């Protein structure tokens, strides 16, 4: 069995996440199968596509339920970009969409600075620069890191979500993924 399940939304680019995992010596499979999500050592909810189509696909396939059960069982999940946003209760994207609801909070359109927020930026208090490409941002009591005043990481129990793309953030991103994947 593969080390990591990269959750399939039905559309979009999961190639880069899988390439990064391969680089780290991990095997991965792209799947929305609830059984695979339940059984895997580690699950990544990647950041591709749009909120509405992603949620429709996750609910229709049973992946959303499997993710909630996995979270309740205390088993690890990493959300990346849209994947982090979907873990919250609600997103304003696409006219308003309910998320998977693992963590408290919601996702709103950014109003400060250039939007989309594109490029590398430092993450505090972690101290490295990572690559961002987003127009929406999380508002959550579970925020654990910020970048230029924006909440860019949320964590509760076994869920960690990051707004940046570790798979696109060079060696800093690979090191981050490696730390995520290392045994607790």
């Amino acid at each position, binding site marked *: 069995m593969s080390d990591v399940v990269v959750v399939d939304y039905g559309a979009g*680019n999961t190639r880069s996440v899988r390439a990064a995992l391969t680089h780290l010596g991990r095997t991965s499979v792209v799947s929305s199968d609830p059984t695979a999500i339940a059984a895997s050592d580690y699950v990544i909810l990647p950041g591709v596509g749009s909120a509405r189509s992603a949620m429709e696909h996750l609910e229709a396939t049973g992946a959303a339920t499997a993710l909630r059960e996995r979270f309740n069982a205390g088993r690890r999940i990493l959300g990346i970009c849209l994947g982090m946003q979907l873990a919250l209760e609600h997103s304003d994207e696409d006219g308003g969409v309910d998320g998977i609801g693992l963590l408290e909070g919601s996702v709103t359109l950014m109003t400060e600075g*250039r939007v989309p927020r594109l490029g590398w930026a430092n993450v505090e208090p972690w101290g490295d620069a990572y690559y961002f490409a987003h127009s929406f941002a999380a508002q959550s009591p579970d925020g654990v890191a910020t970048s230029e005043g924006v909440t860019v990481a949320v964590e509760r129990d076994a869920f960690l979500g990051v707004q940046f793309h570790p798979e696109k953030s*060079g060696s800093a991103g690979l090191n981050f993924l490696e730390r995520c994947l290392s045994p607790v």
Partner: protein
Amino acid sequence: MPLARLIPCLDVAHGRVVKGVNFVGLRDVGDPVELARFYSDGGADELVFLDITATPEDSATMTSVVADVADVLEIPFTVGGGVRSVDDAIRIIESGADRVSLNSAALADPSLISAIARRYGSQAVVVAIDAGDGVVHTHGGRVETTTKTIPWAIEAASRGAGEILLTSISHDGRREGFDLALTAAVRDAVGVPVIASGGAGSAAHVAAALRVTDAALIASIVHENPAGLPGLRREIEGLGIRLRPMKEET
């Protein structure tokens, strides 16, 4: 604002990098994958691949280049040239590109911008504008249109372009510096980031562009000496521009 970005642009024809890449340290300077990795290791913040032939027969070749690049590259990359439809964008993005760049096709049918942005988000859509004498040019700068540059940039952004890639035709290839006035004017007119393109001949030119905008596209200055990219970054940083900190590769 995120850190300023340096973006090497690679011209690709029939699946091979062409034009001016001059470096003995690479086994195969025409191999997009090898060059992409080299630039990534050297400190490129992103890459742009421009398919300069972009005939229908080449689309399968480009798709496979995109997939091969995505398998080795851990920085974002944009693919332009030959993106004429939503299906083209799907093909390129689902092969592993982060963003597509639209040029003539967006001008011919601006709804293409919104259709791709709806599917993937505006951060996945770059609109490239080749500007000269206040108007937009198409077909690699050869055809002058009547569309004015700044109104077109505003329309593109309002339709969902997440970034404008602005090339000044009169400055392109001359290596005498970017068109700072045009870049600043377009950036002031839109709320999205703007990549300056055309005219980089020195670190000072790039630094000057990065004082007025978010990112700079570089071509011959880096292709002539790919191993010089880390040094170019240090020079630009020495001129007071903050770039992402580089670390030893793991």
